């Protein structure tokens, strides 16, 4: 168990290292980093100052070490556009992102779990085909297009919902649905397969042998067990949602970290872009690590394997 956790921890560190090296190298290799790091329209003197400040004349590996030490201190630089510390800026945008992701998660689970269960219980019937089509549509429609279609219909034609911004529950509805759409399909598929697994298990057989009504077999013995992998995945997906919300936040002008990344790109505010990507990567690596450890705690088979 300990060995397994240490191994996973090592892998997570390698991931983080790889992420930082990739970002660092890409910035150095693709042209003059001083130009990237300087504000658009900076003078030659400004560029020289930046080269001095970041030690761009020194060897690459010393540059990397100083890059890394800055990051570890939480120093991601200053935003050109907002004139504030990038890390603070990121943190200030995070609550909005989490709110959106939570709402999208709620939507995706409310849609995905019931449809997944219905599809599993009525295998190969009309419901199952319907569920498959729904899942395929979810995987085939870009989330931002779902958002655009909803704006067109609910905001422009019907005038029911605001097309952008934040503040009220109404502002949240469409971004949450367009972000949650794909995940509803994913959660539906997983619920279905997990439910099918559980329905074939010995304890469900025993529940039927006990003479329990089928409704009780499913609602009590199958449902709870089938939900565990779905909720675990939902935990990871919440973090992934924060990070893939860029397009949806852009479409609806939702003030989260995704929108921050988009602004960073649009305004050539490079420290913002770099910080958003790095912090997003850290979040995902950490969550993957936590899930792996959690699984090892739950499932003894993994422990021995490690």
């Amino acid at each position, binding site marked *: 168990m300990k060995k397994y956790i240490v191994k996973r921890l090592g892998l997570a560190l390698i991931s983080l290292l790889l992420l930082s090296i990739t970002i660092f190298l890409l910035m150095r290799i693709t042209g003059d980093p001083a130009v990237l790091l300087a504000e658009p329209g900076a003078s030659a003197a400004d560029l020289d100052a930046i080269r001095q400040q970041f030690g761009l004349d020194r060897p690459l590996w010393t540059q990397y070490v100083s890059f890394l030490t800055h990051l570890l201190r939480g120093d991601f630089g200053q935003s050109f556009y907002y004139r504030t510390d990038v890390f603070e800026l990121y943190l200030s945008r995070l609550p909005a992102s989490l709110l959106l992701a939570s709402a999208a998660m709620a939507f995706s689970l409310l849609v995905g779990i019931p449809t997944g269960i219905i599809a599993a219980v009525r*295998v*190969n019937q009309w419901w199952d085909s319907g569920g498959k089509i729904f899942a395929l549509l979810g995987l085939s429609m870009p989330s931002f297009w779902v958002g655009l279609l909803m704006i067109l219909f609910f905001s422009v034609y019907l005038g029911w919902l605001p097309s952008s911004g934040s503040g009220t529950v109404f502002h949240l509805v469409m971004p949450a649905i367009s972000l949650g759409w794909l995940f509803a399909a994913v959660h539906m598929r997983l619920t279905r397969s997990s439910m099918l697994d559980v329905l074939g*298990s*010995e*304890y469900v*057989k*025993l*529940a*039927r*042998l*006990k*003479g*329990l*009504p089928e409704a*009780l077999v499913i609602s*009590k*013995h199958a449902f*709870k*067990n089938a939900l565990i992998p779905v909720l675990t995945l939902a935990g990871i997906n919440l973090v992934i949602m924060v990070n893939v919300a860029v397009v949806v936040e852009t479409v609806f002008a939702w003030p989260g970290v995704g929108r921050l990344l988009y602004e960073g790109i649009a305004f050539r505010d490079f420290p913002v872009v770099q910080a958003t990507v790095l912090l997003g990567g850290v979040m995902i690596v950490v969550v993957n690590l936590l899930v792996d450890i959690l699984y090892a705690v739950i499932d003894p088979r993994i422990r021995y394997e490690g």
Partner: protein
Amino acid sequence: MSGPLLDVRHLSTHYVSARGTRVTRAVDDVSLVLDVGGTLGIVGESGSGKTTLALTLLRLLPPAARIVSGEIFFEGADLMKKSDGEIRRIRGKRIAMILQDPMMSLNPLFTVGDQVAEPIRVHEGASRGSAWNRATELLKSVRIAAPETRVREYPHQLSGGMRQRIVGAIAISCEPRILIADEPTTSLDLTIQAQYLKLLRDLQRDHNLALIFITHNLGIVAKMCDQVAVMYAGRLVEAGPVRQIYNAPAHPYTQALLESIPRVGDNRKRLTAIDGQPPDPAAPPPGCAFHPRCPKVMDRCRSEAPPEFRVADAQTSRCWLSDPTTR
């Protein structure tokens, strides 16, 4: 009540593939009888249809299976004629079953007490409290130490032996008339296996149960049962009192099985001593299904399936050698 407790007549269960093109005769024209308090062993290799037969008795089959013909008289009434609701009230209450893998049959997310009390609450409408009290008593009756604390624990907190006893307790919770035990010993080691057999025997004695014992192990049948039915490719090839069949087996398959008796505790899944492979249940050989492996095969066996012959008092055999007209 007069007559046998369970009287199965010409029962056939087939599996039909999704497109309806392939039919597997998992249970084919099976007739058997079980008396009150009696013990019947059903013996066969894996894939011979033993488990399907047991599930057919409870009418609890996977969607692909169809009971195509036959009657199942239980306490005088035909189970085939009962509605789904009626049959559900028999399951777990009048006829109970213990699955192949008792370790995996407990739901990991609910307490032991909850799972033992469940059939009592469902079948007898008992209140939560009284059902729990009964559950505690049941645990005591299967000799689990400190039942008051065990009822509140989860399956993973218990040893394998205890989990089996709990599955046993669930099976007898509503005082059933018949207990079906499906290969209850395959996954167990020697000591636990012996303990478990003893538990089943004790339960049978204490509750006057009729026991149907499904196994591939003739040695266990000899110890546990008074009647035996040998299954091969969905059919009963030989049936009768254990002692009679062990002394004078009529069917070559039974003879081969007896020659290869594994001792109690031998955990081999297949009886390897018989040459050849068991037939593909979806495409059994024509004639007698055993003929490709039969040492005494005759021409007739290859084309014609033998009917059931009565070889002695209460002993039947499906083999042309037992045909009284040719003997």
